Structures are given as C-alpha cells and as structure tokens.
C-alpha cells in the first residue's frame, strides 16, 4: 500500500470515528456539563435546621404546584427471578427488579395525577377535589374512589401498585431516624438538575445490611427529590426513587379532569368500604398483624411471623388472579435459592438479598429483617 492510500484510509475512517465521538459526547454531555458548572453550594445547614425548614415549607402552603418524572430503580439482588419484569411493567412484582417510570402532576393539595406508563398501557390516578379516579388502560377499567379525605396522599398513592412518591418515602425514612443512626448533611448535591441538600442516615449497628439511606431535598423548596438506599454489599443503590426532571410550574388543568371513556368498565368503590378482594386482603393483613412479633429495634429489628410453605401454595391456589401467580413465582424462585442452616434454635432455610434476609424455620416461623442471616438466627433463638 502506498503512503497516499494509507493516509486517505486514515482520513476516511476518521469520519465514523468522529461520528462515534460526537454521539458519545452527546450522551455524556449531561454529567460533563454538571461537572463544568461545579458543585452547587447551598448555605450550610445542620440536619436539624434542614428538617425544620423542610417541615416549615411543608406546613406553609404545602408543596408548590409542580410536575415531573420519577424513576424508581430496584436492584435488590433477588436471586434469578422468573420472567416478571416483562413488558407490562405495571404488575407489582415487576417492580422488584429493573427501573420504572412514574409521571407526577401536582396542582395543589387536592389536585394530583400520577401516571404509570407501561408498554401500550397506562395506569393513572387522578385526584381533583373530591373526585378520585383510578384508570387502568390494560383492563379498560375506570374506578371512582369515594370518601377519600383530602390531603391523604399516601392513601391515594397506595392504590397504584408502585406509586411511591419521594414525599412518602422520605417520611418513612425520617420516622426511622433515631438514636441508633449517624446523621450527616451535605449541601452540594444536584438532583433533577436542581441544587439539593442531602441527608445521609447510616445505621450504627454492624448487623444491619443497610449501609446508608440518602435523602435529597430541593435547595429552594425543600421538596424531597430523591431517596436512595445503599446496601453494604454494593456501590450502587439497592433501591432508589427520585425525580429525574421536575418543574415548579402549575400543570395544565386538563391533567386533573377525567371522564371515563365510552366503553370503559366503570365501577365505584368507597375508600372506607373496600371491595371483596380488598376485604379479604385486609382480613389477611389483620390476621398477620395479630401474629406478628418484632424482635430487636431500630435498623436491626426482625419481624417474626408464623408461616409455612404449604400456606403459600394454598394461598396462591385461592387467588387465581395474575397477582397471585406473580407472588407464587417470586416465592418459588426465592425458595429455590434458599440455603439450609441449622443452630441451637432448630433448622431452617435462609434467603439473603442485598437489603433483606429471611429465615424460614422448619417449625413454621418466618423471620425477616434488614440484617445479616446470623442476626436472624440469634433472633430465632430468642423469639
């Protein structure tokens, strides 16, 4: 090959290389721009000041109207889950793995819309004053929920299988902060392209599987923007829910109006008098609560409840709906990966994921906690 053709070949292949470089630059532009902008610096605040400010912001006039996109990512390290992360994406079990998107429109205390897009499907929860609608395109069903108190956001959201807004998750985390936690605050975070404070809660007890819980609050409005749960075994968060984009402008009014489309199955449901299915579910829950015992406290508390594999099978047979199937599939997959253990307390099988351990004893107890399996065995001996 002559020198000339050699050079022209270099120039020629330079074009695709340049194309790749341009695309890579465009993909990586976000982080680079953020790095160039430098870390945002907000006035320093202690954890206490921050929480007080957040509480005050929450009390005075509530959260500002806003809209945005929430992404929930779970990498709990569940062993070999069967095909439940399929395209639908709105099955509760599907939320155990992968990442899921939730659209939020918030127009004030009594106006809220949550949309969970799936492939060729969507689940919507629309709250407009005393009008509360749950729309499921997959089944073409519109459910009007009556008798919902204003402002009980958590109640609304529980109707959507995966609807965990950062607000709810934040409350959950804050209620756990106690004497057994190391709390620190940083003021240089950037979430959803907004400067944010980050509250880091790390458990002191070494038996906990949780390394730390991080809560990001918007620097200006103190709206919780992101919650991350880090496991000790991984550098990436095991669970994360947070805004990827947020704008504090009042969303269009159309978002909060809903008329059931023609041909849809319309049902009415009273929030206080749930349907048959829910009643059965609540009964189970009540029964469960009666049997539930908690050993230990704080981060390393372990829940003990009576349980056997047979029950699980019977339960699944009872409910032939998709949810039951999913639950059974998950349970079977989990049991398949269980390790046999034994100790002075008896013997059983242990399942460990990044954040949770579960011990199923042969004498019919189930112990669950965000702790190491050793701690569970300790609890089994005590309980």
């Amino acid at each position, binding site marked *: 090959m002559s020198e000339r053709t050699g050079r022209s070949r270099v120039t020629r292949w330079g074009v*695709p290389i340049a194309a790749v470089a341009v695309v890579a630059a465009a993909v990586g532009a976000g982080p680079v721009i953020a790095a160039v902008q430098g870390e945002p610096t907000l006035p320093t605040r202690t954890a206490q000041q921050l929480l007080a400010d957040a509480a005050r912001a929450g009390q005075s006039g509530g959260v500002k109207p806003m809209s945005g996109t929430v992404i929930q990512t779970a990498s709990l390290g569940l062993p070999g889950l069967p095909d439940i992360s399929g395209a639908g994406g709105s099955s509760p079990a599907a939320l155990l793995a992968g990442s899921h998107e939730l659209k939020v429109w918030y127009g004030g205390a009594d106006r809220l819309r949550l949309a969970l897009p799936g492939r060729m499907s969507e689940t919507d929860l629309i709250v407009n004053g005393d009008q509360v609608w749950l729309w499921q395109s997959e089944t073409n069903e519109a459910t009007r929920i009556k008798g919902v108190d204003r402002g009980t956001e958590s109640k609304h959201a529980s109707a959507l299988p995966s609807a965990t807004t950062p607000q709810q998750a934040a409350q959950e985390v804050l209620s756990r902060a106690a004497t057994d936690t190391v709390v620190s605050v940083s003021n240089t975070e950037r979430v959803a392209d907004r400067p944010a404070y980050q509250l880091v809660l790390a458990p002191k007890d070494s038996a906990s599987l949780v390394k730390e819980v991080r809560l990001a609050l918007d620097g200006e409005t103190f709206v919780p923007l992101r919650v991350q749960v880090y496991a000790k075994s991984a550098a990436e968060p095991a669970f994360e829910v947070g805004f990827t984009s947020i704008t504090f402008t009042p969303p269009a009014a159309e978002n909060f109006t809903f008329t059931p489309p023609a041909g849809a199955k319309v049902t009415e449901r009273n929030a206080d008098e749930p349907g048959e299915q829910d009643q059965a579910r609540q009964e189970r829950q009540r029964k469960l609560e009666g049997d539930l015992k908690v050993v230990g406290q704080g981060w390393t508390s372990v829940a003990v409840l009576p349980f056997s594999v047979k029950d699980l099978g019977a339960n699944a047979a009872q409910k032939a709906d998709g949810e039951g199937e999913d639950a059974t599939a998950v349970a079977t997959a989990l049991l398949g990966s269980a390790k046999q253990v034994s100790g002075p307390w008896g013997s059983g099988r242990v399942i460990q994921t990044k954040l949770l351990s579960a011990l199923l004893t042969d004498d019919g107890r189930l112990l669950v906690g965000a702790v190491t399996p050793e701690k569970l065995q300790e609890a089994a001996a005590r309980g």
Partner: protein
Amino acid sequence: MSPAEKISPNHTITATRPSVTDQVDAVENDTSSLDTSTTEVRSSGSGAVNAVGFTKRHNFLFSEVSLTFRRPRNLAMLGVLVLVPVLLGVALRTFGGPEASDGAPGIFTQITGNGLFLTFAALSILVQLLLPVSVAVVAGDSIAGEAGIGTLRYLLSVPVGRTRLLLVKYANAVVFCLVAVTAVALSSLLTGLLLFPAGPITLLSGGTIPMAEGLLRIGLVVLYVTAGMAALAAISLALSTLTEVAIGAIATTVVLVIVAQVLGAVPQLAGLRPYLLSSWWNDFDGVLRDPVATEVMGQGLLVFAAYTVIFGSIAWARFNGKDISG
C-alpha cells in the same frame, strides 16, 4: 472526499469530467426508450447495459426504488406484512376479543370496540421482528447483493461517485421502510374500519380524542416507526458493505436485532436498555398518551439519528475504500 463525489445542490453529478457526463447524457436522451428495458435487464441479474440507463438526471433513485418494488421477494415480504393486520382483524372478529382477565394486552381488547386500534396493535406486533427482517433484506442486499452477482462493478464504472451511490442505496432502503410501515398502517386501518366500529379514540391515559386527530396521530406513528426502521437500515447497509454475500449481511442484521431484544429483556441488564435500538421502536405508544410523551419519543428519535449517523459513516468509509473486483 474527491470532487467527483460531491453532490451539487440540485442532486446532479458535479461535472468533474464534463465531457463524459455530457456524452452519457446525450446518449441517454437518444436512447431513453431503452431505459426501462435496461433496468429490467439488471433486475434479472446481468447488469452489463444498465450502467447507462440510470445516470439520467434525477432518475437514479427512482430506478433503484422501482427495482426494489419489482423484485418478487420484496413484494412477497410486503404482502406478508400487509396480511398480518388482516389476519389479526379477522381472528378478532371471528372469535371475539380476548377477555381482560386472559392477561392479553389491553390494546387487543380495545380493537373490537374501535377499529383504529388495530393499527397500533398490528404495528406493535410487527415492529418486533417482521418489519426489521424485511428492512434487513432490502438494506442488507443493497451493496452486497450487487457485489455478489457482479453488477456493482458496472454501477461504479460510470461517473457516479461512490458516496452518491451509497446515498441512493440508503434512500432506497428508507423509501422501502416508509412504504412497508405505511402499507401496514393502511391495511390495518382498512381492515379495522371494515370489521369493527370506528369512532373517537380512547387514549391510554383515559382521555378521548376525535377520530380525525386519531388519524393524524397514526400518521405520527408511521413516521416514528419509519425513523426507527431507517436506523436499522443504516446498520444493515454498513454490514452490506462488509461482505459480498447478501444473505450474510441480512442474517447478521436479523441476529443483531434478536440479540438486542434478548439483552433488552434481561432485567439485570436494564441499564443497557436505553442504548439499544430495538428498545425504542415500541415507544410510538407515546402518541396515545395525554399529554403526548414527546420527551420519550424525542429521545427515541435522537437514538435513531445517532445509530444512522454512526453506521452510515461506517458504511461510507468502508464503501469508499472497498476494492471492487466484481
């Protein structure tokens, strides 16, 4: 890029060798009656004469496209594509829509209520494999097929720059994408309107839009899916410049599509999903949301553009340095 490969704004060949071009043009004008017969000769495999035929101004792309749509193989693929919505519609009409409790995607239950939904259902099925395969056949064949039967040498023996030849080949593939997607949409529309009632469309978000706007949104879907298929055509074209065996380029494209879809289905590799071409094809359902999911679909179009630019430039670099021995 040598001057001979530059394309002037009105898409004629830059006259670097004016005497030759003029001669060819002159010959053409005299023998324009020969034009059709020569193209047909090439389509049947031996292309010795056609070199003159297509240099006629503006006609290069046209002759390529008409070649593509005259090949029985391509017509058969289009026929299959068109048949799928018809079969789907007839099956739903005969046996009734699935019950919601069957676990069938809700979109199928909606077809029986509104024929327009057949378009979305058919496209969401076909975009998985059948559309990509037919696009791969046309784009993968474009260079390798000509190289394989020896006609590429004749194509290049006239003063048509390689860049222009490649652009025409790609444009031809894109035209095929558009025709294939439009054919599917039209056949679904026709079947849907004939077999099922039609009316205002219920969006996935629960809102309702008038039928005219529904048709407009179907148009948007066609354009979006075409863009997605055009990106695949760029990959296929790049593969086509690497080999002289057309079936190799076609098969590799299909395998890549399947691999991408498998990777996209593995939950542990969820982080990979936004970078895969195939995971964006289905996002045309964004037009059925309220408000329209412009953000997601815009990202999809950017991904398509990125794939097109990268693989288009690879095809260009490879094709310009390719040793064509015939």
